[in-house]
């Protein structure tokens, strides 16, 4: 059974949801407190949503210095899956594991709603079992989800097929409608939508299940 470490910073809040949703696709997920220096042999990592360290200074700006991040960087270098969801995406960009940055939503308001997203690249560890072009109904829940990067980075993301997910109706002003990206190797993925919130028919959508299930090795 695949074992995933779910990193918890003070202020994280989606960790229990990620554990529950991974459990539904038979992935064994364990919470790892941010002061740990090892992921105890986990096959991959999820950095969940929330407000790590209160989002003080900038979302992710303090979390990148937590001791556990050294182990997360090591997992990324080893080619293990490293997934940042929402605040986790912000942490991964601050840590330099993914290019670009996330700034305040264009409308300057927090957004919590379900939006249609398109799978652009199936090269990433998160989308490798998806159909290219598939449409997924995924909840977003963020204040700083407006992805930005310079032109040359954007060109590189496009050329190297690193744009994983895009919004069909851009809710936050992200450049090129970007909702999620991956690194060159495809094992580090950051996305603003919450697949764990779309993992039960009782809650209205199962579109996140395929994404989470693809983490099973």
């Amino acid at each position, binding site marked *: 059974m695949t074992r995933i470490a779910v990193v918890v910073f003070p202020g994280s809040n989606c960790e229990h949801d990620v554990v*529950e949703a991974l459990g539904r696709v038979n992935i064994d997920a364990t919470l790892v407190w941010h002061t740990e220096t090892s992921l105890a042999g986990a096959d991959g990592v999820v950095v969940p949503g929330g407000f790590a360290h209160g989002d003080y200074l900038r979302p992710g700006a303090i979390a990148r210095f937590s001791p556990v991040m050294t182990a997360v960087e090591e997992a990324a270098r080893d080619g293990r899956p490293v997934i940042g969801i929402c605040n986790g995406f912000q942490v991964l960009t601050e840590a330099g594991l993914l290019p670009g940055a996330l700034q305040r939503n264009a409308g300057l308001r927090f957004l*919590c709603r379900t939006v249609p997203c398109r799978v652009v690249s199936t090269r990433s560890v998160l989308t490798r079992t998806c159909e290219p072009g598939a449409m997924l109904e995924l909840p977003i829940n963020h204040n700083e989800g407006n992805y930005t990067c310079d032109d040359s980075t954007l060109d590189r993301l496009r050329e190297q097929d690193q744009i994983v997910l895009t919004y069909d109706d851009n809710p936050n002003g992200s450049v090129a409608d970007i909702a999620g990206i991956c690194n060159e190797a495809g094992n580090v993925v950051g996305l603003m939508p919450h697949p764990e919130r779309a993992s039960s028919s009782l809650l209205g959508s199962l579109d996140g299940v395929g994404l989470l299930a693809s983490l099973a090795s």
Partner: protein
Amino acid sequence: MSSMGSDTALHLQLGLTDDELGMIVRVLGREPTHLELAMYSVMWSEHCSYKSSRIHLRRLPSEGKNVLVGPGENAGVVDVGDGTAIALRIESHNHPSAVEPYQGAATGVGGILRDVFTMGARPIALMDPLFFGDLEDPRSRFLFDGVVRGIAGYGNSVGVPTVGGQLTFSSTYRGNPLVNVFCLGVLPVDRLVLGRASGVGNLAVLLGSLTGRDGIGGVSVLASAGFSGAEGGEDSKRPSVQVGDPFEEKRLIEASLDLLDQGLVVGIQDLGGAGLSCATSETAARAGLGMTVDASAVPQREMAMSPVEIMTSESQERMLAIVRPDSLDAVLATCAKYEVRATVVGEVTAPDASGTGRLVVRDGTGAVVADVPASSLSEDAPLYRRPLEAPHDLAERSAPGPSAVLAGDPSRRAEWAWDLSAQLTEMSYDPEFVSGQYDHQLFLNTVIGPGEADATVLRLAGPGVPWTGKGLALTTDANPGWCAVDPRLGAALTVGEAVLNVACTGARPVAAVDCLNFGNPEHPVVMWQLSEAIDGMAEACAEFEVPIVGGNVSLYNESDGADIDPTPVVGVVGLIDRLDERPPRHAGMRDGDALVLLGRRSALLGGSRWCRDVLGEPGGALAEIDYEAHLDACEIARSLAGVAGRGLGVSALHDVADGGLGLCLAELAAASGIGVSVTDGAIASPAELFSEAPSRVVVAVAASGVDRLLGMAAGSGVPAAPIGHASGDRIVVPGLVDLPVGRFSHARRARLADAAAHTHD
């Protein structure tokens, strides 16, 4: 305070009357010290002591076989089976939000969360009933936007979803908005903990934020007095509003629940209004013991704070834990993990020779600066039987105005000149603009989100409380229009609406909390309104067998001498035994479905929004509530929202409330994107369109299920009649309304966003 000269006696400056000072002298047998006077002033404030309302609150029913903790503790607790309990509480943060909307609303959220996790419960849901002046008023738009941002800013960050609420805009709230907040938590029954300082020699450990000079006198100066331009208005009161830090609170939640899970604390109490004075005296008094506090040990945010400032500060995000000395190291280690400050500030002491537990406060030199019977601060507070008087214009208020009479008389159809389609559109706004700024999905519990049906539906689960298949339905309701006409019947009808709301999602009500927002209790008419509303609420809760397990009273909601309309708010929680499938949502209505009205036709416009807001005249007396008929309507609604309804092809249920049948049908159309066509004559007058008569539900059902539905209703003794069907893209009530669904939806969606975008012009 700036308006009072320095020659004004100290007790008056602190908001105490001469009589109250006399009571303090009798309790102590001497003149009080400055600190003692300050402590009594905050603890005996209206906000903390309920001195004007306590005598009436006793009439509310609070007993029930599953009630584990009733009123008087930090939150009510109800056993919901499977070893799980729910904790619930409602509070107001009206005056702070009028002065500083963002922080006022934010700290209101923080305060109620502490009330709930103090009981050992994990907070899993917040709801916010909000009341502002009309949207034409720029300041009301500013307050609306600021309050919503404050709730979002704090609630999202602290990691507790905001799953619903209520929004009312009415000129009665122009000078004094209402910001109420409801919180629900879940806990394993064996983690239930009470705020008691038991065990002589145990330590009082202060957890959380530094103590600063913020919010001193918040409950006495701010929450227990009205607003008036003469005193310098809201600006002069701004220093009494505190500033919230949701990250500190998040760590405090996790640390507190971890401490309770490890069994490391014997009692825990949040610091809210009246700060350390309240937490130390209440925990000691509940245990019948005393406490010694070293004010200088309290970690301070500012230099040279006096014991008075330390003991009455309302700095946010603090808790007081009672800890056995041999657990202290483990407590400090757990707090260190969560980066929560923890400091021993006192010790539980034995009662004195006369059996009285004393609260003794020392300063940095060891000198005693206060020495009072702990229970006297909370239990000996004055109790006022303030004079009551019915308003002189009571009869006029329940006499319909000329337009209301005309609207109910089909023989004068030729005189009906209202553009009802436009009025219906103006009466509606889509709360999605607000709920979409709140995280309403955290914990994977939100099965029916805010505004998607008559109540929010959650899984009964949370971190540490695994889901066993049960569901919770949550609603908060208020109707100041009804209560302005008749506070007793209005409050009873409000409870009725809440109970019907949860029934429309398949739940049976298990507990309620109330937040009583009224004007100045020194006005006899206001005390009459309060007393009447309590009687109405008590009667309805008794009839529906719903215990009121907690509540809050907010008085002095007035501005320049004008009291708000009486606004009792009720929060009701219902239980769904098996949440196998999603209950019907308004959006579920399908093209071709039949629409069936459960309940009687009515043309009574008493208290209706159409009369109040659109016609600007009274609509007459309220419709009476027939409790038996209402319970029957709830029972059938509950069946139709569950398995029986699925068998019949029920796709949506919506109760008829605020805005009458007109708004009920239009909201179903907007949610589903499908038009509504009412049968000619089924709604025969504007009065029938907008009547808010109770015990009525519109059901959308597959055409094939109509006969069985009517049979089922007949069997239950509930009147039922088909009134039309869902089809096309227009809302059509022959002779009255003809409105494209798209235009209605667009207008209601845009209204709040436009208002919030124009806060300064």
